[in-house]
């Protein structure tokens, strides 16, 4: 996960702030965890969010999704549903047009269904 973060931000500093990662604190099933990322930004030509990356801590792969946007978005926000293998931390990194990186996190507890079947 650290490697992926380094790959995204390079030598730049990762500043905490501006990024809000909304995910449920506890989910009944890790197969479809809804989440929303919103980044504070005027979304003008001069000052906007270029990209949002979502990274996870404990899945087999750290990368979840990367989105590219621009001033035409109006507001920098993304909603999707993700798979989480286990209770873990989610990290969102926003890349702004001035080359800086901002981050926000969320912790999710994943519980399992009680009655499952034999076939997949």
């Amino acid at each position: 996960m650290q490697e992926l973060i380094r790959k995204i931000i390079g030598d730049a500093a990762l500043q905490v702030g501006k990024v809000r990662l909304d995910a449920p604190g506890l989910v009944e099933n890790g197969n479809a965890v809804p989440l929303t990322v919103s980044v504070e930004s005027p979304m003008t030509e001069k000052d906007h969010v270029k990209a949002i990356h979502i990274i996870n801590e404990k899945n087999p792969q750290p990368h979840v999704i990367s989105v590219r946007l621009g001033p035409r978005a109006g507001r920098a926000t993304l909603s999707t549903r993700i798979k989480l293998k286990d209770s873990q931390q989610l990290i969102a990194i926003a890349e702004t047009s001035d080359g800086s990186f901002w981050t926000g996190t969320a912790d999710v507890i994943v519980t399992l269904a009680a009655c499952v079947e034999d076939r997949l």
Partner: protein
Amino acid sequence: MNALASVLVELTAGAMLLAVAATAADIPAEERRSGYDFMSRELKAMQDDEAANPGMLAVLDGEAIWQRGEGAGGKSCATCHGDARISMKAVAARYPTFDNAIGRPIDLEQRINRCRSEHQQVAPLPFEHKDLLALAAYVAHQSKGQPISVTDDARSRPFIEGGREIFKLRQGQLNLSCAQCHDDNWGNHLGGAPIPQGHPTGYPIYRLEWQALGSLRRRLRNCLIGMRAETYPDDAPEIIALEFYLAWRAGGLAMETPAVRP
């Protein structure tokens, strides 16, 4: 009354209370709650938003199949039933239902298959087939918001009672009955999961565990495996009896198809 007599009266009263508790009371109508009520805010939102509900993809598939001509005659569901929004309104809410022609109850999927073989002259679809689920989802979606209301008459009663017996029966390696969780312990937790009352309000459901749409049959199979009990073959009379009882037991609750469940 002397002391002995009053003790005897108390003991008898106590024994009677125990006897009542042991027959696991049905959930009274005013306490009936759909599995929806036991879900998190986020899952409720996923179900409610028809643009985000993954089960809606199957409903759209079902709509396409409804229009599709099948078999030598090229008849589609629409050929006989026209606009499903009108012809199928509140239909699924009455299933399972007693089918006179075959002399026993059938569920929605079986009814769809009978239409296919009798009226479209095409082979019935296997249970859990994507197209059968899509059609069932499309038809049941036309009952969304309608109260579940199955016919409980002289012909149906033996099957509903048969289903009730299975529901109350202790089964499997855990010697557990459906009633012990879903009548006696709904609202409590099993592991991290809230125990719902077990009403079939939104079938076919999009179950997150399956990452797909599935039938009540499939869900019941999951329950039985979870209980470490023998599962029934898909066309077993026990399954339809259990489905009939469950629908009767859910009377008054609104249909939600396609529901989302964990």
